Structure formats: structure tokens, C-alpha cells
């Protein structure tokens, strides 16, 4: 019941705003903010009610619901969460009020429509993460396109119409194929769209390679995995600031969530056979995204391409199919949502002041805007992956998990690691050009952050540090759920797949010498998680 409230509370806000839209701008903003904050507060109940020990989906009636919906087609309203979706749900409810507050003064026309789109989008995204019925999942997956389409198309920049149509058509083309896949699964699942019974199915499905492909392409477009990424820079650059935040923060995670929820556990054999094809694509994405980001003159485009690179890491971790790698990927989804979301917010704030996003137009901001520069630095470092901040934990787990546990050549991981270095290059170089040097007259007169803007950014900073210092808060609840995925994935592989921090030498599982230190740390984390 609680979960349904979380999902549909924003929709209630949409209706409320629709009815009261003549009340004036502050009332509309107030309603939107209150509703989204309320949603966040209620969603904390999901965390407190969460049982970390349960494999699979939570069974508590607050966190799980199943009602008949379209009985004639075997469709039910079936929602629930596990350790993976819990964090994505919380990320969504966390970012939405921040977005509403960030957009406080920047919407010039159609304010009520803007807030309604944002709240409707929240319901759509939450539904995607919570749906346990494939039909319901697809409904939310498609329905969420409409508000995003309006957000980019109405409140976007110069080339917004091109960007928004490209975004919708790319996604629809992918989801059209996924629909066929969903239908084909339906008949193999005893005429039901129930995900839980699908996940419990022993053995492989008929035509599992085609089905894997149908699902994977839809998700790869959403992630976006190279070479399906071309819609992303357009959409990001043209979207309004909060549109970019939501897009990078949550929407892209729908793709990686789909991979870990559907592609890996439903079609383990196909996923295993596809790994040699997908992992290189992920690594190309990491390096290519970083290289293109390096030469971008436009701040927003730079951040957009850095997303391609970061999401490549997530896909790499998922397809390592090791416990550590997948956990790292899920954590990295959250990290990327926070860091990149914050970066887009910061770029938006500076754009509102300077009306430019070109790096050459800036310089010396650090002197005049110390608070802005400090926050920007922390977020930049978090995005690069500085130890002590969130990005490091996720990327390290992914790389280590792929190196020791990945069913592919270790050279791949070596290449992927260069992405971390490249990230430092493009981010720090950008930071240097924007923040240091002597400001010209225009830049010297820019005001520093207002209290509202600090309030917008502080919660994100809090979590950036929290995840960096004590990731166990976040790893513990997802451990069992990731374990379910890795179990499913390993079904068809040999038994001597190495555990965390172990490698096979001469057919025997042994601790590697080189990785002694790192594994020791990680095993400590793991043990601590177990004892708790």
C-alpha cells in the first residue's frame, strides 16, 4: 500500500495543479514542492520497512501489492521492490523535489504544465522501477515518454523540437521490439505477465536469443550504450536544466535497471553468449564518451558525453556478472544520478547568470563565486572518482569485479580503467578553464549562489560524501537482491567461477597476491555487511 502511495502521490499532485492552476504561480510551485517532498518523506518508509535479508522482492504488504487488473489478458496491478529498485525509487523521489526547487524561478511560460509534467514523469519513473508485471512495466515505460517529450519540447533550448522528437522516436523504436518480446514471454509464462513467476522459471525460454536481443536493444538505447547514444547529447543540451537532471539522474537508469532486472536473470545463457559483444561496446562507450567530452566547448554537452562514459562503466559492471561488479553498477547508478544531476544543476545555475554555456566565455569564477566554485569542485571530484567521495566506490567495485570476476579478458578492464584517467583530464581541465585565471568584466560581476540554490545542492553533497565514506548503508540492502541476480546468471556457467576477490590459478581458487590489499578491504566490507 505504501508503495502505491509513493507511486501515485505525484499523480495526485498533477490533478491538484490541473484543478488549481488559476491560483497563481506561487500556489502552483507550492503544491508541486509540497507533493514531491511528501512523496520523498513517504518513500523513506520504504527504506525503514525494508528487510535486507530477503532474497528477491519484499513480502511486506506495505512494499508489495498484487491486484487483478485486466483479468481477460492475465494482467495484474503487481508492484514490489527489492534491494536494487529500492535505491532507484529513493533516488527518484529525492531528485524530484530538488528539481522543482531548482526550477523555481526559471520557468517563464506554462508553469502549471511544467510542474504537471515533472510530477507525471515522477509517477512514470517510479512505476517503471516498481512494476512486477511486464504489461504494467511497459505501460509506465511508454507513458513516461509523454511528459519528458513536453519537458524538452516546450521548455527546451533552440533546437528543442529536433531533440525531443529524436528522443521519443529512438525510445519508441526500441520499445516496439521489446513489446514483441514481452508478448512472446507471456505465452511461455502460462499466459501471464507476472515477472515473479518468470524469474522463478527453471531452464531457458524458447527463442531466448531473440528475446534477449529484443529487450537488450530497448535498454541499450535508453542507457545509452554506444552506438545508440546519439540522441543523448541532443536531448541533454536542449532540455531545460531540470529536464537534464531527471534525464541523467533517473531516466538513463531505466535502461541499466532493465538490463539487471530482465536481460540478465531471464536470459542468462543468451547474456553469457552476448557478453563478448556487449563488453567491447561498453568500453568503446567509456573511452569514446570521455574523448568526445574532452573536446566539447559547451559545458552541458561535456557533462552529457561524460554520462555516456559513466554509463559504460555501469554496463561493464553488469556484464561482469560478478556479485561485486553488479553491486558496484547499482551503486554507480545512484552515484551517477547524484553527481551528474548536481553537475547539470550547477551548469544551469551558471547559465542563468551568464546566459552562456561556452567554456571560453568563463574564467576566474572562483574568485567571485567561492561557494559555487567549492561545490562545483566537490561534485567534479566525485564525478572523477576521488576516494572518499561516491564515484570512487562505485567505479572501483565495477573495475575490480570485472577484473577478477568478469568472464572476459582482463585487458578489457585495463582499457576501461583508462576512462577514469580520461575523466580526470576532461573534468579537471574544464574546471581549470572555468574557475581559474582572471575574470573579465562580465564574469567579475556574477553573483554567488543564492540560499535557495545552496539548499538545492546541499542534500546532494551530503549523499555524495555519505556514499563515499560509508557505502555500506547502501550496499547492505542490495546485497541479497544482487545475489539473486548473480545466482540466476551463473546457472549455466562452470562451478568454479571465482568468488569476490579470488582468481583461479591452475584450476584452484586462490587469493591473488597483487590484489591482496584491495580484497582485504572489500572482504571487510562484505563481512561487515553480513554481520549487520
Amino acid at each position, binding site marked *: 500500500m505504501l508503495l502505491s502511495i509513493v507511486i501515485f502521490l505525484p499523480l495526485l499532485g498533477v490533478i491538484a495543479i490541473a484543478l488549481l492552476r488559476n491560483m497563481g504561480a506561487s500556489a502552483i510551485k507550492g503544491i508541486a514542492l509540497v507533493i514531491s517532498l511528501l512523496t520523498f518523506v513517504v518513500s523513506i518508509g520504504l527504506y525503514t520497512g525494508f528487510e535486507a535479508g530477503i532474497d528477491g522482492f519484499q513480502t511486506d504488504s506495505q512494499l508489495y501489492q498484487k491486484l487483478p487488473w485486466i483479468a481477460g*489478458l492475465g494482467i495484474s496491478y503487481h508492484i514490489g521492490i527489492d534491494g536494487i529498485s529500492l535505491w532507484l525509487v529513493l533516488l527518484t523521489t529525492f531528485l524530484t523535489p530538488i528539481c522543482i526547487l531548482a526550477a523555481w524561478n526559471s520557468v517563464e511560460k506554462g508553469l502549471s504544465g511544467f510542474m504537471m509534467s515533472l510530477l507525471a514523469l515522477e509517477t512514470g519513473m517510479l512505476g517503471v522501477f516498481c512494476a512486477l508485471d511486464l504489461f504494467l512495466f511497459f505501460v509506465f515505460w511508454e507513458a513516461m515518454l509523454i511528459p519528458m517529450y513536453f519537458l524538452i519540447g516546450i521548455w527546451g533550448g533552440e533546437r528543442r523540437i529536433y531533440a525531443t522528437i529524436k528522443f521519443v522516436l529512438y525510445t519508441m523504436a526500441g520499445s516496439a521490439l521489446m513489446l514483441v518480446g514481452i508478448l512472446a514471454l507471456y505465452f511461455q509464462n502460462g499466459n501471464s505477465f507476472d515477472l515473479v513467476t518468470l524469474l522463478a522459471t527453471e531452464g531457458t525460454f524458447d527463442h531466448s536469443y531473440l528475446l534477449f536481443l529484443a529487450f537488450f536493444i530497448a535498454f541499450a538505447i535508453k542507457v545509452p550504450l554506444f552506438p545508440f547514444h546519439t540522441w543523448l547529447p541532443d536531448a541533454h543540451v536542449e532540455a531545460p536544466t531540470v529536464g537534464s537532471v531527471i534525464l541523467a539522474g533517473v531516466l538513463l537508469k531505466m535502461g541499466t535497471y532493465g538490463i539487471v532486472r530482465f536481460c540478465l536473470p531471464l536470459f542468462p545463457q543468451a547474456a553469457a553468449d552476448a557478453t563478448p559483444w556487449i563488453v567491447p561496446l561498453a568500453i568503446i562507450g567509456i573511452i569514446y564518451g570521455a574523448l568526445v567530452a574532452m573536446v566539447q566547448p559547451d559545458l552541458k554537452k561535456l557533462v552529457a558525453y561524460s554520462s555516456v562514459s559513466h554509463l559504460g562503466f555501469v554496463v561493464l559492471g553488469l556484464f561482469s556478472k560478478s556479485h561485486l561488479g553488479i553491486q558496484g553498477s547499482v551503486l554507480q547508478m545512484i552515484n551517477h544520478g547524484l553527481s551528474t544531476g548536481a553537475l547539470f544543476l550547477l551548469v544551469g545555475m551558471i547559465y542563468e547568470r551568464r546566459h552562456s554555456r561556452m567554456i571560453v566565455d568563463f574564467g576566474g569564477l572562483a574568485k567571485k563565486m567561492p561557494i559555487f566554485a567549492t561545490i562545483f569542485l566537490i561534485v567534479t571530484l566525485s564525478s572523477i572518482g576521488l576516494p572518499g567521495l561516491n564515484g570512487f566506490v562505485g567505479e572501483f567495485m565495477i573495475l575490480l569485479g570485472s577484473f577478477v570476476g568478469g568472464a572476459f579478458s582482463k585487458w578489457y578492464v585495463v582499457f576501461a580503467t583508462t576512462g577514469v584517467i580520461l575523466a580526470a583530464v576532461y573534468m579537471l581541465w574544464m574546471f581549470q578553464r572555468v574557475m581559474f585565471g582572471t575574470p573579465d568584466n562580465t564574469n567579475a560581476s556574477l553573483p554567488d549562489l543564492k540560499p535557495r540554490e545552496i539548499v538545492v545542492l546541499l542534500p546532494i553533497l551530503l549523499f555524495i560524501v555519505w556514499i563515499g565514506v560509508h557505502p555500506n548503508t547502501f550496499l547492505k540492502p542490495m546485497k541479497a537482491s544482487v545475489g539473486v541476480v548473480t545466482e540466476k546468471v551463473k546457472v549455466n556457467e562452470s562451478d568454479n567461477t571465482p568468488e569476490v576477490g579470488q582468481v583461479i590459478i591452475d584450476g584452484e581458487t586462490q587469493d591473488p597476491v597483487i590484489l591482496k590489499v584491495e580484497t582485504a578491504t572489500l572482504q571487510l566490507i562484505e563481512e561487515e555487511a553480513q554481520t549487520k
Partner: protein
Amino acid sequence: MPVEIPEINWSLLMPQLVIVSTLLIVLVFDMIDSISKKTLGWMTIVGAVIALWASINLLQAGTDQTQFNDMFRIDSYSLFFNIIFLVSTILVALISISYLGKGDKKQGPYYLLILLATLGMMLMAAGNELIIIFLGLELMSLSLYVLAGYFRESPASSEAGMKYLLLGAFASAFFLYGIALIYGAAGTTSIPGIAEKLTTESQSPLLLAGTFLLIVGFGFKVAIVPFHQWAPDVYEGAPTTIAAFISAGPKAAGFAAFIRIFMEALPDIQSEWTGVIVLLAMLTMTVGNVIAIAQTNIKRMLAYSSIAHAGYVLIGLAAANDDGTSSAMLYLLVYCVMNIGAFGAVILARTADGESLTISDYAGLGFRKPLLGIFMTLMLLSLAGFPPTAGFVGKFYIFKSAVQAAVQPDVVNTWLVSLVIVGAVNTAISAFYYLRVVVTMYMREPEEELEFNPYPSTLVIGLALAAIGVLLIGILPSLLLNPAQNAVL
């Protein structure tokens, strides 16, 4: 030879009888000058509502009987189609009342012809006999020819009527020729009779030729590519209300007879015709959607979109299973509501000097005319098949039935699978041009300020009903799904 007069159960014929009496009443009242012509429109609506109520009652009672020596079949299939026709008629009458304006002498025949066409459609759906179906088809078509050219002073309307008449007559000839050949092969025109004959005797070339002529005839009537050329011209030239009407009810009626003949009379030669249907469906969807992209006139765009939608319905027929039939029925109902709704929104965007039909005229309307913007957006999203609208449910069910037919445990019917994939890809293509109208309404600034007429209340009621229907079916599809599933042949 003694002639036996068959026992007639008049209560089963209630829907048809109500429509006949309504049209007689309209005819009589049209002669009284002191009565406002709008009353005729309301009479049409009341009559259609009563007929609708009667049909629903019969449907709920699970009626399945034949009348007039087995020529006329009242089963849940025909009753479900009655609902489609009557809903279309009610909606069209609602949007017509304000469209025709006040005090015009010509309104009587307008409603009369609409009712006659409705009666023809009901005959087609209930026909258990090729001749009855032909009779219904002609009754419907002749009324529509006149309606398409109803605005005599407008050259476009006259041209539309003429074109429709010529091509329609051509199609009827094909259809009749097909019936003749099938009669030659089977020795009967009764649908169960043909089916019986087919199981006992080997198929003759005559029968196959007749079957394909029937496909051509129906292809013209429901505008399947490559027999679709009349549709855009007729839709563009005909009065917009009539374009809405032609695109909805008659198309459903064509499919009603199409599906009944092919699923009931010709199931034994299914292997011969499914291939053709699959090809036609692919062609129809793709050509309709791709050409629609290039349109700048919204009526022509809707014409091509309605061609494409006929292709989606054909998927249901190609699946050739129970779910295929019921999904086609559900889709036709949904399609009628949303298409009439879309045409209604076009009428709503009326300026002092007529309708604004160029898509670019809609620039900025979304914010200046919020109600119009919402109606239009909802209908177009539904046509494009976005959840949570009825269009999504309809398409989903159609694809589901086709996948069910295609994916068997051991074999995969690659033809059907590719059909579904073509259909799914077409959905994405169609989103492009539907969304373009939405883009124009909400995301572009108008070049010149157009003065729009105030909203007529009947039109808004009609549109509101369509909008409620589209959302209700989208969120609670079981309301219609169960009747549709129970109404299969």
C-alpha cells in the same frame, strides 16, 4: 409449393427497428418548417441511444439466433458491432449539430442518410448470407456517396462525392462478382452453407478466385493499400463530420462482414488467404504511415492514418484465431471513438472563414486554446498508441493475438512474427506525425493570430464523451475486453 412464412421474433430486431422508426420520424419532422432543424439531430441521437441500449441488452442476454430463414443472425458478434456503429453515429450526430449551423433546410436528409447508412452497417454485421451483406453494403455506400457530396456548392465536396461513387461502384462490382464465383463453386450464398460445402468438397479454382475478388471488394471499402486511393481525396473534400463518419462506422462495418465471411465461411482455405492478408496488412500500415508523414493538411493526414489503422486491424484477421477476431473488434471500437474525436477536434479549431486545415495553423493553439489542445493531444496520443489511452490497449491486444498465433512451442511462423514487428515499427513511425501536430500546437509560435470561433457546446459534449471513453478504456480495458472476448464467432 406452399410458402412457409418464417416465425419472426421482433424483439431480436429491436436495434434495427428503432433505427428504422427514427429515420421515418426524422423524415416526417423534416417537413414541418416550424421545428428547429437541430431537433432532428437530437432525434437521431435519441434513436441511436435507444438502439444502443437495446443492443447492449441483447448482448448481455447472450443472444444467438437467426431470423428470416437463417439469413439474418443476431449473435454477440453482430451485437458488438452494433455498439460500434451506434457509438459512432451518436458521436457524429453530436459533432454535426453545430457544424451544420442553424436554419439550413438541408439538414433533414443529412440525418436521414446517416441513419440509413447505420442501418446498412447493422445489416452487414448481422448478415448470415452474402446477399444480405451485399444489400447492407449498398445501402450504406449509397447513403455515404450522397453524404460525401453533401455540400453541393463546394466543388471539393462534389468532387469527393463523385470520386467516392465511381470507385465505390467499382468495388461493389468486384464484390458482387466475388459472390457470384463463390456461389458457382459452393452452390449457396449462405455463410454456414459455404463452410459446410468446403469441408466436404475439394476446393475449386472458382472459389479461390471468388475469395480474392471479395478481398479486393472489401479492400476498397475499408481502404486497404493498394485499394486506398480514394480515401484521402474523399476525406479532404467531404464535410469534416462526414469524413469522421466514413472513417469510423463504415470501416468497422466492412471489417465486420470481412471477418465474418473469412472466419466463418472460408476457414478451411485459411492457408490460401492468410498470406495475402499478411502482405496487405504490412503494405497498408507502412504505406499509410509513411505517406501520412508528408501531409500538411490535417484531414489528409488523418485519412492516411486511418488507412494505416485498417492495416492494424488486418493483423487481427491474419492471426486467424479467437483472440485475433476479438482484438480486431476491440480495436475497431477504440479506433472509431478516437478517430471521430480527432476529427471533432479539427472542427473545434474553426475560424470565421472556415476550418483551419493546414497543420501549421495549429501553432501555439495548445496554450491559447487549452481545451482544444488537450482534446487534440489526447486523441492523437491514443491514435499513436501511447498508454494510458485506449489506443495502446487496442494495439497491444492486436499484437498479442498475432504473437500468440505466431509463436507456438515448436514452430515459429516467421510471416506472422515479421508482421508483428512491422506493426510495432509502424507504431513508432506513426508517433512521428501524430506528435508533429502536438509539437505545432505546444512548441511553435503562431505566425499570425487567427480568430477562432467560440466552442459550440454540443461539439464539446461529443469530444468530452470521446475523451472519457479513450481514457476509461485505456485504464480499465476489462470493461470492453470481456464483451469482445465473449463475442467472437
